[in-house]
């Protein structure tokens, strides 16, 4: 994280602590209390969301009266790679979310063809913080205002030397985002839009910034889902991404998914993700599976 980002991060943390302290004043702490599926699944960066996108909801089953948590694992087998993400998040008083995710991008046989060696793995660690600043996605059905959250994700990629050699500017970076999530109950629809200010290449796995374009740019994540029942929803997502590296172009990512709340604590997501070309290999799309455990 560059020094210039620290004041924003510090301000967010202050908001977190202030918000949490106020939220549970005078009421008993309780476990759980979110309706099925309303804690969402977990996005690949560890924050509450769907497959590729980060949403404005706070991880875990807690309400304003409790503390919740989630753990997740996502696997996207692609034609020439294997993508794995896992991690967890803590939700405090339905106000603040702190998350961690580890992503591994296994090049398997492709690594040899890229000259990296068979089974070479790109990877990164992502630490995130999110604060709900307005609205309630579930209960405020009579208002147009969505649930709005702001967040940061600090990402640290492995192999700094290689990233530089590939044309990337840094091995670490910070994404800032504003997410808005609204459940339109009367229409059985969930809509999310997230504006992300980022310079991450392939989510950060290939570093940050590059020889084609340096510096962060605004990118958009949109998700739409239809509630089939209170335990099943189907949806689709679109995520724009920077295109910073000369050696490998990057384009928008898409996915379509079905989420099933098996119990109040276990959610399964199955879908199809299309990441476009990844490190010179075209058409990287594949069926994926994500499991989330939440309390």
């Amino acid at each position, binding site marked *: 994280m560059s020094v210039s980002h620290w004041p924003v991060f510090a301000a967010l943390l202050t908001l977190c602590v202030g918000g949490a302290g106020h939220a549970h004043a005078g009421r008993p702490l*309780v476990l759980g209390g*979110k309706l099925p599926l309303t804690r969402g699944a977990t996005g690949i960066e560890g924050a509450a969301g769907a497959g590729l996108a980060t949403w404005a909801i706070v991880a875990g089953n807690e*309400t*304003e009266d409790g503390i919740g948590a989630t753990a997740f694992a996502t696997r996207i087998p692609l034609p020439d790679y294997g993508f794995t993400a896992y991690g967890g998040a803590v939700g405090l008083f339905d106000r603040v979310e702190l998350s961690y995710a580890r992503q591994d991008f296994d090049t398997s046989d492709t690594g040899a063809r890229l000259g990296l060696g068979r089974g070479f793995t790109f990877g990164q660690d992502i630490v995130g913080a999110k604060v709900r600043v307005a609205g309630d996605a579930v*209960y405020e059905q009579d208002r147009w205002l969505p649930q709005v959250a702001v967040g940061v994700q600090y990402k640290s990629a492995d192999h700094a030397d290689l990233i530089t050699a590939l044309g990337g500017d840094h091995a670490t970076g910070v994404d800032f985002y504003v997410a808005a999530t609204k459940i*339109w*109950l009367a229409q*059985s629809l969930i809509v999310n839009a997230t504006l992300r200010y980022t310079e991450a290449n392939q989510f950060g796995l290939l570093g940050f910034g590059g020889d084609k374009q340096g510096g962060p740019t605004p990118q958009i994540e949109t998700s739409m889902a239809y509630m089939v029942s*209170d335990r099943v929803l189907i949806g689709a997502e679109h995520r724009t991404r920077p295109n910073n590296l000369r050696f490998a172009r990057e384009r928008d990512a898409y996915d379509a998914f079905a989420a099933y709340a098996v119990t109040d604590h276990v959610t399964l997501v199955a879908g199809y993700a299309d990441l476009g070309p990844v490190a010179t290999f075209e058409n990287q799309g594949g069926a994926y599976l994500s499991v989330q455990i939440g309390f």
Partner: protein
Amino acid sequence: MGLRNILALAVWLAAASASAQETKASALQEEPIAPYEQADANAGAPPLTDPEVLKAFNGREGVDRIVDSMLDLSLADPQIGPIFEPFDQVRLRRTLKEQFCYLLGGGCAYTGRTMQAAHADMGLQTRDLAILITHLRTAMEREGVPFRMQNRLLAVLAPMRRDIVQR
């Protein structure tokens, strides 16, 4: 047994049967409540105008069954049962049936209190409401109300959390 004893028994029996009738009657009667201004607006939201929704709820009879089923499930629930127990069950069932019927466009008058007044000083938490909603879902499911029609009612009820959950 002397005449006096027979008379005493007759008097006792008459008294017992009268008190039994009284008990029966009071089971259907509501307890007195402090006066308040009655208005449909107390129901907390304007009624839906789409007749398809009430039809999906099987009309007023369906709504009545759903309210009964939701309250039976809630009373049997170890977590929220104790919240409902102290209340006048006859009145609770009647006013909730009126409220749901009114909100679904069934043409009922709502004679209960406002949501804020009815839930004052109860210290309800969002989780309590979520458990009630889960029981309401089950009740609607039992009545055969399609999921998207269930959501039409829940969309009207959800904003009432502001007046129900004490902050």
